[in-house]
């Protein structure tokens, strides 16, 4: 029989069996709305100062965005410097009056400081900071060479190369990307969907005793396994694409600016010490790729439990317990990073590892923690796939 044809037929059948229910789209839509609402709330909370003076912000932003010129700085300081001086003397007025841009002088200070001055200062001075870091790294290379500590020499050489030529070309609105950076809710919802939709993938065969029949069919072993895996990974891919795409679309829509996407990723304040120099857009895509790997690992874990258990209830309970344990380990055991190197939750929270320039000693060579986490994730996924293949109900009996 044509294995390819059986595979394609099984693919469609698996999709219909597991995913084609009238309730799944309703749930997905409900969860998308929940995610959108939460994201909207987070955005409004982060932009509370700007929201009260949206038009004012847009006016000044259109004037000052892009390369930070002397003229822009002069204009900003003309407004901001007196406010800052009053703030340092604790003499800002909370009374409304004429001559203010927003409602009060205090509000003016908060507005210009948080939306423009601090950000522009950071963008402008970042290159100096990076040069100092590179110089420090260079000095440390010299110091460690004297002590013969080759690992530290290699590590600081890498740091030197990473920081040597960093600079932020201009001022852009990165605040909405900070909201995106901290937003993990969509990952939680995808994990929930994975648990509920994938739990029955193998265990239902056992509950309904169908696995005995599967073993007797020509496409019952490898082909069925491949079809199920394809459906699972395709499901994870589609769902994560929908949720993550929603995140970006909502934030882009709320912000209305796209200039920051071409800025380097260290223009985001939380990433100032990170090891990456790619653009924001590249980082977003990279981050989603890593999260997808994490979701595949979680999906594989659920499938493995589905292979081992005989009741759907057990699969739910054990999957939830294991995922909670993983989440706990990821948050609580931060000092024992070796454990977290093979923890899929670390992949979902890859921003934590990406925002610091930390290395692990791998046979005397420095390896970025992020790289370690990704390699750990890949190995975890391969291990889970091997175990699923060996333990899936269609595999157990020899022909």
């Amino acid at each position, binding site marked *: 029989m044509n294995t390819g044809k059986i595979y394609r037929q099984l693919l469609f059948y698996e999709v219909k069996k597991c995913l084609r*229910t009238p*309730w799944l789209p309703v*749930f997905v839509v*409900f969860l998308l709305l*929940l995610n959108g609402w939460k994201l909207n709330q987070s955005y409004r909370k*982060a932009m509370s100062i700007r929201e009260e003076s949206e038009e004012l912000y847009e006016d000044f932003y259109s004037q000052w965005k892009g390369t930070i010129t002397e003229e822009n700085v002069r204009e900003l300081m003309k407004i901001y410097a007196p406010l800052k001086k009053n703030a340092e003397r604790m003499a800002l007025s909370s009374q409304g009056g004429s001559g203010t841009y927003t409602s009060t002088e205090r509000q003016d200070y*908060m507005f210009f*400081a*948080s939306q423009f001055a*601090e*950000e522009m200062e950071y963008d402008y001075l970042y290159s100096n*900071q990076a040069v100092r*870091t*590179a110089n*420090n*790294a260079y*000095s*440390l290379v010299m*110091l460690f060479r004297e*002590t*013969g*500590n080759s*690992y*530290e020499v290699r590590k600081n050489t890498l740091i*030197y190369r990473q920081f040597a030529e960093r600079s932020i070309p201009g001022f852009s609105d990165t*605040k909405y990307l*900070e909201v995106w950076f*901290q937003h*993990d*809710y969509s990952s*939680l919802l995808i994990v*929930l969907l994975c648990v*509920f939709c994938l*739990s*029955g993938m193998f265990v239902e065969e056992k509950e309904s005793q169908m696995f005995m029949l599967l073993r007797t069919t020509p496409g019952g072993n490898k082909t069925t396994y491949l079809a199920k895996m394809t459906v699972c990974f395709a499901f994870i891919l589609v769902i994560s694409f929908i949720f993550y795409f929603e995140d970006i679309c909502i934030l882009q829509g709320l912000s209305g600016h796209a200039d920051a996407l071409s800025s380097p990723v260290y223009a985001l*304040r*939380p990433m100032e*010490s990170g090891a990456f120099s790619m653009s924001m857009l590249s980082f977003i895509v990279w981050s989603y790729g890593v999260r997808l790997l994490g979701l595949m690992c979680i999906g594989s874990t659920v499938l493995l*439990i589905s292979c*081992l*258990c*005989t*009741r*759907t*209830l*057990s699969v*739910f309970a054990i999957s*939830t317990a*294991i995922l*909670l344990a993983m*989440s*706990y380990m990821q*948050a*609580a055991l*931060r*000092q*024992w990073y070796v*454990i977290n190197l093979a923890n899929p939750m670390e992949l*979902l929270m890859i921003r934590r590892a990406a925002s*610091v320039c930390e290395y692990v000693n791998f046979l005397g060579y420095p390896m970025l923690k992020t790289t370690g986490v990704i390699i750990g994730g890949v190995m975890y996924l391969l291990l889970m796939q091997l175990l699923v293949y060996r333990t899936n109900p269609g595999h157990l009996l020899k022909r």
Partner: protein
Amino acid sequence: MVWFEIKKMLVYRKSYWILITLLIIECIQILGFTRPYDAVLEKNRNIYEEALSKVEGELTEDKRDYLETEMRYLNDVHMKMADLQMSYYRGETEEEDFREEFSSLSEVDERYVGFTKLYNQYIFVREDANRSFLYTGGWEALLNDPKVDLLLTLALILVLSSVFSEEYATGMNCLLCAQPVGPDRTVRIKAAISMGLAALLCLLAEAIRLGYCAGAFGLSGGEYRLCSLVSFGNETKELTLWQGFFLQLILKILGYMETACIILFLSVWMKKYSLVIMTGIVLLILPPLTWQDPFTFRGIPMPWSLCAGNVYLFGGEGELSLLQIALVMAEAVVMMGLILFFLHRKNRNFHGSKGLKFAACLLLMLFATGCGREETTVYYNSDGASFAEADSYMAVMYSDTGYLIQKDDGKISDFPLNARTGENVFSKSGFFLAGEECFYIQSSAIYENSGMPMVRNDVCLMKINLRTLQTEEVFRWNQETGWLFGLIDRNAQTDMNGMWIQKFFIHRQYMYFLRGDGSGEIDRMNLLTGESEVFLNKDIIRFSYDGKSFYYTDDFGRLVIYDLDRDREETLETVVAENFTLAPEGIYFSNMRDGKKLYLYSYDSGEVSKVCEETVFRVYTDESNVWFQTVSGVCGRMNRASGEIEFFEAPGFILAFSKDGDYIYFIDEAEWVIYAMDKSTLEVCGKFEVESPY
């Protein structure tokens, strides 16, 4: 039939495991994680209760007078003690007199903290005539936590989802409709058992909580008004404490019964077990988890707020009156009635499935274990903790800036040895040197956002080998506040994040440190688990450690040696010191009985001998000399063999003293220059400019 349904639900489906697990976790949560509302009050409870017994109940004029008079008296005693200590250290009071008067004042002062708690309660009670004095710790612990028990909700979802959905899955619903016993009776029995189970579990959980609070804290004064508790101070429903407790209990039971009804409804409507569980979790667990504020759903007759019954007891904005609460309860009952009617109309029966074996699951757990540090002979003095020296390098901390000095050529590098030092990585702590390994605390500032940024400090206990300069992380304080994808906000223990530790040492797997809040308290933290506890609650400014014992001075200035392994202390009556320094040959100290002149206590003989006539501030020793710096900044060295003292001009304050090396390092704060002075010639032979930390 009732018994059969119970058996099917709990026994055949093995759901009793879920319930047993739930009860165990509830017990662990309640017994292990219920913290007292006011830890300081609990520590001073006997004093507090002794005073409370005189004022319990409503506030009267007599009680008011008593409280204000007593508080004034205790404040006076507290200030007298501080004045007495100052007078003793200035030499205006003899030691015997000081000890006698101090002891008698201490006895009275012991009541200060406990009574202050009662006085604070008085300030609260006097604002409202309906408030009364009572011990509030137990009631606060019992009523103050407005949270839905999500574990109980999850357990109900897992147990009850299959009640009707299994029949649809197996197709038995049609067959069961043909049986002689009416299907509607079956539906009624199922619904009754489900709601009864929910109510029972809720009652059990509350009973455990009530029992624990009654046993651990005490629940006296239940007849007083609910507004006597600080958390409910502005409530206006005029309930007593017991009434409040029973009201929230009834609301909780109603809430969980409604939860059971909703699950049964979903079970009939969706017909598929997995969908019921998914919907149940999304509908019943996700909203309270997402909306962190439990008061959001107060007016809605849904389990999201009813299951956190004590939400309705709080006052303030949005408070519901008793009538409004009754209305919410009535709405919930109507909803339950509608659901039961729907179930009755759908008329489904349950067909039990065969019992299945419980499959073994694969669990992979990794645990990292650590071993205790091998003890070496160390002489740690908290006063000299600002530098640590090994053969080739010396690490120095001055005014929150760290330096690494290469002893052979005097080259200076920034410390910690991190490329980001000076940007967002820094160390403010002293050092603890054990052999070649030097421990210090490193902080990295992490900016959560831009523009008026929120800064979080990632704090680690680091270890550097001063020979190879290899650094290693020993412990990291967990400042992670957002757990479970940011839904659970765990309050980071910012008072214990390590950033404020300046003086510490490590003994076995514990780190002992002086709290940076000026309390003089020594705490101890387990480096494996991160758990910390108070080790010594005395007013300690300086301490020392010799690898085995902890040295400090008591209230009378006597040196106390505390054996950390045997948990025993020994007080040296002959050593009454303001400052002291451990050295291999003995303890150098400034003798308060002799004008703070320099003395030496010998370990071997236990004898005390005068070293020199100078009043010293700091003492350092090497093989040939005893070096010191007086209070006025003058430096001197005394030859051990001849006893000859030589004073010399110091170019600044002593920054670091190289015990085995050739140099002493001074810092001139006016110019921010470090000078290296040759110990043998007493001549400045090196000068290094450093960046001012300001």
